[in-house]
């Protein structure tokens, strides 16, 4: 399995990285918190750790730590617009249940 980006998401990430002027890629992860147990994290990467796993999707390097991968393997990251709002969305096949606000989930 792997982590992938849609083409739209990849284009956005590349634009944000170029604007930022530094960064190796994108880090996806989870942390255990929130009303349904887990929440996603999405960060720029300045340094990788030896245990990190790396994927490549549409030219963007995606970094995941092994602990998070257990929960998000197979995820496709998309970039969408909802009204005036826009941002990234995790399409995670592992999710069983989300909290009402959609900010945390359980597997």
């Amino acid at each position, binding site marked *: 399995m792997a982590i992938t980006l849609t083409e739209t998401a990849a284009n956005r990430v590349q634009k944000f990285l170029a*604007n930022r002027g530094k960064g190796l890629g994108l880090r996806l992860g989870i942390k255990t918190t929130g009303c349904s*147990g887990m929440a996603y994290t999405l*960060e720029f990467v*300045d340094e990788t750790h030896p245990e990190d796993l790396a994927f490549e999707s549409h030219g963007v390097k995606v970094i995941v730590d092994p*602990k998070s991968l257990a929960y998000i393997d197979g995820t496709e990251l998309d970039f*969408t617009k909802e009204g005036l709002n826009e941002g*990234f969305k995790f399409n995670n096949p592992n999710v069983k249940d989300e909290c009402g606000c959609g900010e945390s989930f359980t597997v």
Partner: protein
Amino acid sequence: MALLQIAEPGMSAAPHQHRLAVGIDLGTTNSLVATVRSGMSTVLHDEHGHALLPSVVRYLPDSQVEVGYVAQAQQSLDSQNTIISVKRLMGRGIHDIPDIGHLPYRFIDAPGMVQVDTRAGIKSPVEISAEILKVLKNRAEKALGGELTGAVITVPAYFDDAQRQATKDAARLAGLTVLRLLNEPTAAAVAYGLDNGAEGVYVVYDLGGGTFDISILRLSKGVFEVLATNGDSALGGDDFDRRIFCWVLEQCKLPPISPQDTRLLLTKAREAKEWLTDHMESRLTGILSNGEVVDLTLTSAVFNELTRPLVGKTLGPTRKALRDAGLTLEDIKGVVMVGGATRMPQIRLAVAEFFQQEPLTNLDPDKVVALGAAIQANVLAGNRSDHDLLLLDVIPLSLGLETMGGLVEKVIPRNATLPVARAQDFTTFKDGQTAMSIHVVQGERELVSDCRSLARFELRGIPPMAAGAARIRVTFQVDADGLLSVSAREQSSGIEANIIVKPSYGLSEDEILNMLHASFASAENDKQARALREAQVEAKRLLEAIHAALEQDGVLLTSAEREQIEQQMHALEALSSADDSHAIQDAVESLNHATEYFASRRMDASVKRALAGKSLNTLEI
């Protein structure tokens, strides 16, 4: 689900803890709102794609308020109730405003600040500005999908305390938390990233719609200091339109024309001016109300000639500001252009000639102030470490506490920079629970038994409530010296307990590394262990709820029904101590199912109890 933005490394927000912050350029002519998304400062648009919001507020007869383009359209028809350029009135008394006689409003002399009598009543400039800020706040919350943490609002460098206080009051009235007021020229410099660049003196040349400001800033140790300001409060892009308008009247030998024709020609003049930014000539056409046709061609050479005195008028204050700061042209490291009018080539040329260097123009001059304010807001809201260069101490291992089932809830993640404070809300597990034991742990694993125990304390005196009703806020705070204090506070009663620990005490570098590696190596086991514990907690919660229900309303069941439920309860109890999380989940589900009719009977019984002894007509239905 909620949409996410990319955070700086280690700066991801916890759910429901978004630090949405915006920068607001509250301008004399136009206002804007901007934010940093995925590390990039961007101006937020309204539903129609407009970035600018004209700073115009109109009070309508039906006590409605219009702001922006709609209000601007009615400006000449309803001038007494349509307030433009309210920024000029902020924090000013009636005698402080030089051209007050020319303004179409009914002014009221009030102590401290002048007020305007509109059809909606007497309004202070603070209230009027708040209407503009409300629209921008609303726009930002729609675009960001959440409530704002705070805003940075820009003010001219020359604003005094009264004007700054009035701006803050307007923000508060609009429901905004002001993180900081920022000088407009400083915001422009921040947008260009000058605060990360070389130290030195910078000039900000700001020619807006109706005002001209020149500011001289010195950057040292990442902080901008305003050395001098000057300007002309009655000089701006609109004056350039008026020059073209007068030229049209002259060329066509027009007699004094109606206000409607004046508006038409001024609009055409502005369009011609904007066209000349990238073209050598512009055609200017229109039909006046008497049928007369205007059709002229304006070349950039003629336009430059017409407006040469206006351009010259900006250089006087510039020279003065330089002199006030005691500087010469050689001292100037860079020039930043702000305001839509600085798009005009003759302005850029004049500024380049004057300072003997090319000014910075690659950011949109209408947006640059808002963009800089947004960058500042992002830092202040805690989305970025204050300074990338500043070496900060970090938390070596996550800090958290024990929750039901021996699971760890992390409150402060590993690598958070010091000092740091994080709070999370917890609740009670049992009905009538009056105390809560707080077990502070450190580590990356999911189970308390795999982490290091730091401290334990108890919060007592929680008022008895149903399970899940109490709100207990636990705050973890690590100061710059690495001292951890944990406090717990029940929100409704205010009872509190706390403890101070030194988290890194006794842990060597190697021990920290080992704990980290163990957490990576055991990711899959931890995941299963967590699932099992969660299922066990759920099973326990359900069993307790049914026990309580049987005790209270057991009479509603036949002995056969009761036996069946009890049988399933025993089955679940037996499974709970085993380690198959799926089997527990299945048993929980079937027990839930088996008690459905019991629950509905209990509901009926309690409704009956509530109605007993009341005649039908005393009931409010």
